[in-house]
């Protein structure tokens, strides 16, 4: 099979000059200060909307194929793979995070670009310390499968444009993508690494 693919995705990247350079000598000997306000109490006067964050992304692939129309609508060059997302999050209380994302996806014959709710959840923090945090998520939650399932549609969060089908099989995408339900999660820092436990149902 003669298959050629030219793939270009619009990506957000770290500036090329920022990495590979040694840390500037003049900062070496100096101390770095961490700043924490003395007043850790949440003031009632602070506006609810100061914590609002909005993020989005657009990814457009260019595909060139002779015989394999996977993610392409026809042989030759096509623009059949597009991912557009917009999310918002709000932290009305220090222990409560509200977050949601709308995703529109065109993928060959599989998806036509109709916007859908990718996730919409409330995250309640139950325990938070420097070594451990735990909480409860309710709503539509992305499934933590493999390394990249939770952001499988966000091109700049994973290496490559297409994820390996052996783990992120697109035929069962709807089964594995997200759960409408609840998830208890915890993460603990240990000397060996981070221990992560998730209990999910829905």
């Amino acid at each position: 099979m003669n298959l050629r693919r030219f793939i270009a995705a619009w990506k957000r990247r770290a500036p090329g000059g920022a990495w590979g350079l040694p840390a500037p000598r003049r900062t070496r000997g100096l101390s770095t200060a961490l700043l924490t306000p003395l007043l850790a109490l949440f003031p009632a006067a602070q506006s609810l909307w100061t914590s609002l964050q909005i993020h989005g992304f657009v990814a457009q692939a260019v595909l060139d194929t002779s015989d394999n129309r996977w993610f392409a609508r026809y042989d030759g060059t096509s623009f059949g793979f597009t991912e557009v997302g917009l999310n918002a999050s709000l932290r009305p209380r220090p222990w409560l995070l509200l977050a949601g994302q709308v995703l529109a996806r065109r993928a060959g014959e599989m998806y036509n670009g109709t916007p859908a709710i990718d996730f919409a959840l409330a995250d309640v923090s139950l325990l938070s310390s420097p070594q451990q945090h735990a909480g409860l998520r309710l709503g539509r939650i992305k499934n933590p499968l493999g390394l990249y399932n939770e952001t499988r549609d966000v091109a700049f969060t994973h290496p490559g444009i297409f994820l390996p089908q052996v783990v992120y099989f697109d035929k069962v995408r709807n089964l594995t993508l997200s759960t409408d339900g609840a998830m208890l999660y915890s993460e603990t820092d240990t000397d060996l690494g981070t221990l992560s436990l998730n209990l999910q149902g829905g």
Partner: protein
Amino acid sequence: MRVFVLPDEDPLHVAFTKDRLGLFPYQLRGVWDRQVFSGTVQAPTRVADESEMIRRVAAAPGAVGYARSALRDPRVHTLEVR
């Protein structure tokens, strides 16, 4: 807790990220992007320079950031990292 960061290309951000966190700035960004785009955290707030960093950290309760020099500002608590 609100986290403030300097721009990816800022020398102090590069030094802090590499020496303290053991990551390149683009790797740190990748870590928070994967969480921001799955709805599990909010992204750090980017500030233009160290003076804005100190001002914003002082103004936000429970905020954390980093600066090159120790401060005399009574509104912030300084932890020295050598």
